[in-house]
């Protein structure tokens, strides 16, 4: 059963047809061709598939296409501000927040969501915010560092 849905994806309007049961994760990766959002577990336990749905970070592996008409979706491909990398992306590069990089898109999406809401998070608040994003490579230390550094840079830009 295919449904016509109209969505806004990374700021652009799109009309497409998708089977109702198609998960948003697969819609993005297989039908639309944006493979930046990753599948890590398919059951909402790892956060690698995190996207913003109507402004909130969610696991796209648990969202059915059939309910998406009118939705606003932002993926990792939409994180950049124009041609420039977002400070959180730059911080991940500088601080070594990415090793194999597979969890990185999800981590970045959660980190940015945190900083949008809380420009001056404590270390514990950062760890709490990303506790739904599993990383097997880094031990999280440099990810936390990167979020702290990005937060400082964003605060400096505001000042």
């Amino acid at each position, binding site marked *: *059963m295919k*449904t016509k849905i109209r969505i806004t994806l990374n700021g652009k309007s799109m009309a497409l047809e998708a*089977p*109702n*049961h*198609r*998960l948003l994760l*697969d819609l993005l990766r297989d039908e639309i061709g944006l493979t930046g959002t990753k599948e890590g577990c*398919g*059951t*909402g*336990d790892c*956060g690698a598939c*995190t996207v913003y*749905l109507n402004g*909130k*970070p*969610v*696991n796209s*592996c*648990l*969202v*059915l296409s*059939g*309910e998406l*008409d009118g939705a606003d979706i932002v993926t990792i491909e939409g994180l950049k501000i124009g041609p420039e990398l977002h400070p959180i992306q730059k911080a991940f590069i500088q601080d070594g927040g990415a090793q194999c990089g597979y969890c990185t898109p999800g981590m970045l999406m*959660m980190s940015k*969501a945190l900083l949008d809401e809380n420009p001056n998070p404590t270390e*514990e608040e950062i760890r*709490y*915010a990303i*506790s*739904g*994003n599993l990383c097997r490579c880094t031990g999280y230390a440099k990810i936390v560092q990167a979020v702290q550094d990005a937060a400082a840079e964003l605060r400096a830009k505001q000042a």
Partner: protein
Amino acid sequence: MKRTEPLEIYQPTTLREASRLLKDKGAGGRFLAGGTDLVIAIKEKGLVPKYVVDLKRVPGLSGIRENADGSITIGALTTMRDIEIDSLLNKKYPFLCQSAAEVGSIQIRNRATVGGNMANATPSADVAPSLIALNATAKIVDAGGERMVALEEFFRGPGQTIMSPDEILIEIIIPKTSPQLVGEYIKFSPRDMMDLAYVGVAVAYVIAADKRCSGVRIVLGAVAPTPIRARSAEGLLEGQPLTEELAAKVAAVAAQESKPISDVRSSAEYRRAMVEAMTKRALLNAAVPRTAKVSWCDRRDRRY
């Protein structure tokens, strides 16, 4: 998720329409709220719904408000995240917000709803014990009308509630409580986040200046087919001043009342031992007013 059978999704805009759909389309339909349970049931547990009725376009089903009579209504489609951060609930019943915070990750909580969570009736659910400790009621509607069911009576077994297929849970109501009501929820599990509860303990009681407790409710999760009240344990504390010694006795009785099973996560004996340990802690923690914000990492180990 792979399937060749088409999946119909309906997005009604009224409750009546939603309930009608289930009646008219017949068996095999499921309501969809946040999807975090339903999609997993389809992917992992072999559920093949013929059709799905998405409730999210029906207005008025989410939100938290205090009513004139002092009760609080939580719309069924209120997300766990909204409950977690709600300022009213954090002021009145911080332990309820804490139980919501225990559900999965922020990404899950942005979608998971309290109504969907109740309807899913997982024995290890975190929010149900706290709501039962607060004597909450569920408002259920169908095409014919509405009824109120005490949440304590709402669950029948794992995955089973007292609702018929075309009934919809639309609100949870917490009755007005005494200003001296205190409570605590402890989720016991190995990690600090992302686990299902091995044992869940919610307590609520009114504490007088002389430390006498009344209206004691002790609700255990993950140690029976549904959340259960440890009534004998409650009875021991009712009307008595709370002391460490009494808390220990009460906890021992609560452990006896639990009916844990052994599974891949834990043995029954260990769960029973943790019911005892955590009930004692929850009772004593509740009596200590929370001044500073409790560190997330300390909340499981926090000792009065």
